[in-house]
């Protein structure tokens, strides 16, 4: 009896915080997205009206929302494969039997992950400065004309993708390293005896053995990359010509710049409900395969 009461005492504080400050607001967001909550409602709740699906309808007619969605998909479609490729490549190099100073290299490649995003975005903005940036200077030495990296609508998103890959690849690299180390050495021995080359060993031993890890990492990385916000906020303010405006940035502007909290909630649901469903289903699939 006493122990049972104590158990609730241990669980309730944490669960209450999560319920009140996370689960309740998530459900509230759905309700909010059916209202016209704006600056007037913020001042006086009597100005609040139920508008049904109006926010969603209007959003689907807003060109800027579609552009933000397109920009975000571009960032995800290019950034995620690039990032995972870098992580896997770096992990394979670190895991190689001929690597010297593995611990040093691992720490060095991981360092960008723990840095503060805003601070390193400020550094990158400077590195990619059109006139005084080191990147254009290095390109100039190779006789390439200077590029207006963050000021040109065609180059701004690729620059942000490069930055995100630099900042993040160490995270998945560490996960891949652990996955590689868990592959039994005998499998490689056997493949070698059968005369398999390094490349064939990679294709027929490494890739299948790493499969479950690879799919988990891909799903989680994708879900993370959809949450693009701070990079364009610091480096481009969503410009030039809205070419780096992400959906989350659009939501931020709608909600906390113009105080259209109802419309902003609709944005959140249009972006995150599909992602949430896809992530949940894929995760379940990936895990059941792992168990099987």
């Amino acid at each position, binding site marked *: 009896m*006493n*122990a049972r009461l*104590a*158990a609730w005492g*241990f*669980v309730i*504080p*944490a*669960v209450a*915080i*999560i319920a*009140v*400050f*996370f689960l*309740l*607001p*998530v459900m*509230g*967001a759905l309700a909010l997205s059916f209202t016209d909550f704006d600056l007037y409602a913020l001042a006086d709740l009597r100005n609040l009206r139920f508008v049904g699906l109006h926010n969603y309808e209007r959003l689907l007619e807003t060109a800027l929302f579609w552009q933000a969605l397109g920009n975000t998909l571009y960032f995800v479609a290019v950034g995620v494969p690039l990032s995972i490729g870098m992580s896997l490549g770096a992990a394979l*190099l670190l895991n*190689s039997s*001929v690597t*010297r100073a593995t611990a040093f*290299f691992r*720490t*060095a*490649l991981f*360092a*960008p992950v*723990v840095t*503060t*995003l*805003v*601070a*390193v975005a*400020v*550094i990158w903005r400077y*590195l990619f400065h059109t*006139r*005084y*940036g*080191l990147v254009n*200077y290095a390109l100039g030495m190779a006789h390439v004309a200077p590029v207006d990296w963050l000021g040109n609508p065609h180059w701004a998103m690729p620059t942000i993708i490069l930055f995100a890959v*630099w900042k993040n690849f160490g*995270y998945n690299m*560490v*996960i891949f390293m652990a996955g590689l180390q868990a592959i039994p050495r005998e499998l490689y021995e056997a493949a070698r005896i059968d005369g398999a080359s390094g490349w064939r060993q990679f294709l027929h031993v490494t890739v299948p053995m790493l499969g479950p890890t690879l799919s*988990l990492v891909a799903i989680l990385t994708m*879900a993370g990359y959809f*949450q693009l*916000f701070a990079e364009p*906020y*610091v480096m481009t303010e969503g410009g030039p010509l809205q070419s780096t405006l992400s959906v*989350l940035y659009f939501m*931020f502007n709608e*909600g*906390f710049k113009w105080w259209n*909290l109802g419309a902003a909630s609709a944005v*959140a649901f249009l972006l995150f409900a599909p992602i949430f469903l896809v992530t*949940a289903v894929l995760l379940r699939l990936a895990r059941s395969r792992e168990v099987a």
Partner: protein
Amino acid sequence: MNRRAAVLVVNGLLVGLAVIALFPLLWMVSVSFMPTGAASTLPPPLLPAAPTLANYRELFGRVGMGRYLLNSLVISTAITLGSLALNLMAGYAFSKLQFVGRERLFKALIGALVIPSQVAMMPLFLLLKNLGLINTYGGVIVPALAGIFGIYLVRQYAQSIPDELLEAARVDGAGELLIFTRIVLPLLKPIVITLAIFTFLGSWNDFMWPLIVLTDQGLQTLPVALASLSREHVQDNELMMAGSVVTVLPVLALFLALQRHYIDGLLLGSVKG
């Protein structure tokens, strides 16, 4: 490919990657010691010709960086200590204490783990506004006082505690709180360190929510202040690099000191998650 060539290629590639990873950070430190305008010349200098502390003096003097540093320290420390206490207790209870609906509640929490926190932002803002927590430390601290991921980590780790140990203490008449503080906590020490560094780094680097809640300049954390400073001082690269150093250095140092625990936590959370 013979072995010597392989050694050369593999290590050469790694050196290249390490240079790419570290160069922006090293250059940030170097530029932060240059006098105003020195970094806006061609060719861009790699090292300061005459190192100066002027940028740091201006940061902590006129710009008031000390205040932002203090805000970041207070907020990150409070979140770390508070969420450690709550997550440890809950994670232990989910693993070792019996109560009705335990498994179902835990499954529900895990199910909610994939919901992106941004969905909750608009209603959370209104809720905190009603509680009078907007533009206070509390607006950032309170919602972060417990986390599903932390509870999950602790629960996984606590599974290894033998039940007999706890039963023996109960037979000896020890209360549940005493068992938790005297027996369980010492056994959980590795996960406590891991969770502490994870939480501290996470709240130190957090940007979007503090940006929304802390509009009062005197309350802003380092990332929020740095973002707004970098908009005002677009030309002043040396000053901004010094600001970046002040922001990044504490977390980078903490990571280097406790690296093993950080990586352990990362692997626990993602591979087995």
